[in-house]
């Protein structure tokens, strides 16, 4: 566990989390949530949880982003907050 990389990735995770719930476009929020999930996957790999990293990359980042984009295209991209 290299603490410099860990601090950097934790900072990016926090930024992506705040950005995903503040951006004024639902498609942008879905893509930022995918970036958040990939950063978490990197964090699990740094902390030695390689099986969790694999699952997060395939299920958390892959399937979740596809579901979000599909739902946004079936509804609307407009959001007030």
């Amino acid at each position, binding site marked *: 566990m290299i603490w410099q990389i*860990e601090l950097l990735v934790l900072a990016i*995770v926090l930024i992506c989390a705040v950005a995903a*719930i503040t951006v004024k476009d639902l498609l942008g*929020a*879905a893509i930022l949530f995918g970036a958040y999930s990939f950063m978490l996957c990197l964090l699990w790999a740094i*902390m*030695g949880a390689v*099986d969790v990293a694999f699952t997060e990359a395939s299920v*958390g980042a892959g399937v*979740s982003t596809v579901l979000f984009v599909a739902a946004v295209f079936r509804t609307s991209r407009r959001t007030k907050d």
Partner: protein
Amino acid sequence: MSDLVPILISKVNYWVYIALMMIGLWAVIAKNNLVKKIIGMNILQTAVILFFISIGAKYNATIPIIMHGHDAGHHAVNAIDYINPLPHVLMLTAIVVAVATLGVALALVIKVHQKYQTLEEDEILAKMDEQ
């Protein structure tokens, strides 16, 4: 003051876990858009996963695959050399449950949008009052 900095650095995973959990909880409670609420729910779930993985992690240890596997009987296996794999196994289940709840929630959002033509909570409540 000089004692505080090593504590903050060594426990930084837990501070980020608390921050992520509060961000997710705030999004679930205070956001007006239903998709934003679902994103907040997912951030809350991943914060819990971060907490559990941080419990199992340790410095100067390797991933939990036993070394000298073909003649393990000649070597003593020290648990201090390996990251604790029990939280990893529990959190694998949590990730799959998270994507299942996400699918159900997005299906419900699509049905709500078919009925009310909006995703904003206040507009949905106003249309429910009209009917």
